[in-house]
């Protein structure tokens, strides 16, 4: 607590604020269509800076200069996409910051908001502290992100985290199932290039890439809010799967021991010994063919599924497959369903879980 004067109690007791009885009329909601933010800040220059920043980021901003006003705005207009509270904010209008007392009002406001909506995304700006570990706050608020360095990068990334968290909570069960199955098929498509990673790893990586994907970072994958979160994650999954494939090809990490067999005399031989020498990826070809045969083997008693698989394998579109094999829409959809079900059954899905 080296940054706090010694006369300030470093471990103030936090209490929930008294219920506020306000005579002011309710405010109108601005949260119907745009992203919204509540900014609780009493410093004029910081307030203006943050207001402009949030506006530029696409937020409709409500402003409060003290915690009472902040609470009233939240009660009347909340929830917001994000609530940004300065740790050192006075309680009421006309009051300054009392440096002789523990700064508890910002924290109390955060707790009161959490009481109303436990899932509300909140950021506390505590720039007077050197580290997050030094900021006094009750354990209920330990998960709230702190803005220690007043930088655009930090703030933008905290906002991104809150938006992503909100988007995850907002996913419907069918959207979640779509993402899971989509990732499972991508992993199956990767074959050995997945290197033992499963759909969970793919989805985790997609989210990680999103979080580091600020607008100005080439490494991440920024979530452009014009597309849905599901579409964004789908794109990220595709991109990561493609990267894993590229990395695998570059390294061509096949173990010879995986290909070696023994003849009757116990002598080692490899199936690629008989493949044309000009074939640089002969071993890979054999392994992939084996997996392909295994997949086709699952449908030996289902001629329509086999036809559909052949069509898909040849890169045909739905209309082309339907025309080539004289299938109708219903038969096509039913065969596709049977293929998905069989490939994703626990016996055949090839995942670790």
């Amino acid at each position: 607590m080296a940054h706090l004067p010694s006369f300030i109690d470093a471990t103030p007791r936090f209490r929930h604020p008294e219920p506020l009885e306000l005579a002011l009329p309710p405010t109108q909601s601005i949260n119907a269509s745009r992203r919204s933010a509540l900014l609780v800040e009493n410093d004029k220059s910081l307030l203006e800076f943050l207001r402009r920043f949030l506006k530029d980021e696409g937020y409709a901003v409500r402003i409060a200069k003290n915690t009472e006003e902040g609470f009233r705005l939240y009660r009347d207009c909340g929830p917001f996409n994000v609530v940004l509270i300065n740790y050192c904010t006075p309680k009421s209008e006309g009051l300054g910051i009392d440096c002789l007392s523990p700064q508890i009002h910002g924290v109390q406001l955060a707790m009161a908001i959490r009481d109303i909506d436990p899932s509300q995304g909140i950021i506390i700006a505590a720039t007077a502290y050197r580290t997050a570990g030094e900021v006094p706050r009750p354990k209920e608020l330990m998960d709230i992100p702190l803005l220690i360095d007043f930088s655009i990068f930090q703030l933008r990334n905290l906002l991104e985290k809150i938006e992503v968290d909100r988007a995850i909570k907002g996913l419907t069960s069918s959207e979640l199932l779509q993402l899971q199955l989509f990732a499972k098929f991508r992993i199956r498509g990767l074959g050995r290039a997945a290197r033992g990673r499963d759909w969970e790893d793919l989805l985790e990586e997609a989210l990680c890439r999103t979080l580091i994907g600020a607008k100005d970072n080439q490494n991440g994958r920024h979530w452009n809010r014009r597309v849905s979160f599901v579409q964004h994650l789908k794109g990220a999954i595709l991109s990561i799967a493609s990267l894993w494939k590229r990395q695998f090809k570059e390294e061509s990490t096949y173990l010879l021991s995986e290909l070696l067999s023994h003849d009757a005399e116990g002598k080692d031989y490899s199936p690629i010994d008989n493949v044309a020498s000009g074939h640089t990826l002969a071993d890979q070809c054999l392994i992939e063919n084996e997996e392909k045969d295994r997949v086709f083997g699952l449908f030996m008693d289902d001629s329509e599924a086999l036809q559909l698989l052949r069509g898909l394998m040849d890169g045909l579109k739905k209309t082309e497959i339907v025309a080539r094999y004289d299938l109708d829409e219903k038969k096509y959809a039913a065969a596709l369903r049977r293929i998905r079900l069989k490939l994703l059954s626990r016996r055949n899905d090839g995942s670790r879980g």
Partner: protein
Amino acid sequence: MGAEGRKMADNTNHDWHLETIMNQLGDSVLALSDDGIRAEVSEGGADPDEEAERTRTVLHESLQKLENVNRRLSNLGHTVYSNGWHRGRSGYHNACVTCGSFVSFIPATGEMRGEALDGRCPRRDECTVRRREASR
């Protein structure tokens, strides 16, 4: 390019066939209706609600892992910008903008490594004093 042309062009790509099949099956999942996908998951022997929540948990855990890295570094006084993460062969790498010490992070395991985790940022005090003086 027509179907035959595509086939000819890709005959040299040995893993293309299986990947094409799986990718198209993956795309077909996105076209399913809400009821359709739930029925399919049920028919596959799983509980759709459980599987949906499992997927949400995977996403939340991933969010939490990166948050844990940021929080741990922040508690030590390091300043690591989220947009400073760079992908490497074995995870993501970053460095404290104040003292320059390195940190790496593997999303799949949540494992963190690097000198930045060894202790408090040595240049943090210096920077805080400078920032405070500038604000006066």
